[in-house]
């Protein structure tokens, strides 16, 4: 599964994207974030305000309880400030 990061999340994680092999126990977006936070300080820092971070699965906004089955690309980013 491809993970992509934008804006302050990208800066904190220290990369724009990465391929990860998820443990089979990770079924939802919230579980994925929990798992990422165990992978190092940079992830802990990036997701410290977990409730604020927005998630998109295959280009569609989703909630933390969304399931990951079939997802190709999961994106993490702060609230949008375009327009």
């Amino acid at each position, binding site marked *: 599964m491809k993970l992509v990061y934008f804006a302050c999340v990208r800066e904190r994680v220290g990369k724009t994207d990465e391929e990860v092999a998820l443990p089979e126990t990770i079924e939802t977006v919230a579980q994925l974030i929990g798992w990422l936070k165990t992978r190092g300080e940079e992830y802990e820092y990036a997701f410290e305000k977990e409730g604020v971070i927005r998630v998109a699965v295959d*280009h569609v906004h989703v909630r933390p309880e969304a399931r990951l089955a079939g997802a190709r690309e999961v994106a993490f980013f702060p609230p*949008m400030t*375009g327009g």
Partner: protein
Amino acid sequence: MTTTIRIQSEPFDAAAEATALTAGRTDVGAVVTFTGLCRDEGGRLAALELEHYPGMAEAEIARVAAEAERRWPILGQTIIHRFGRITPGESIVLVVTTSVHRQAAFEAAEFLMDYLKTQAPFWKREHLRDGAAGSWVEAKDTDDAAAARWR
């Protein structure tokens, strides 16, 4: 119904986009054009840097445009959002809506802008005039409230 969506780093020509939606037609009664510009915040800013999520930006704006078409009897809509470095006085975003009557054109344009602000994957970073890289622009509660009124 004509929908045009473009995500680009280049400047756009708002007048040409409005003309494209009305040229050769005699059924359009109302054209609303919204242009969002980069401000210098009282001289503090040298530029804004706009980061975006390619692919999702187009997809998300297309979803918002489809929703506008479903809600209002608009004849055409054009949405252009720039990315990259944009200096004060330059345009960032354009929304043009056309309709038979003004209310639909106004409401659709406001709806599109409210949703672009809160749903389209773009992020603004400030570059300060003293040369320092400034901070990411914070999302505003007022933008969330503006978007919430359409629910």
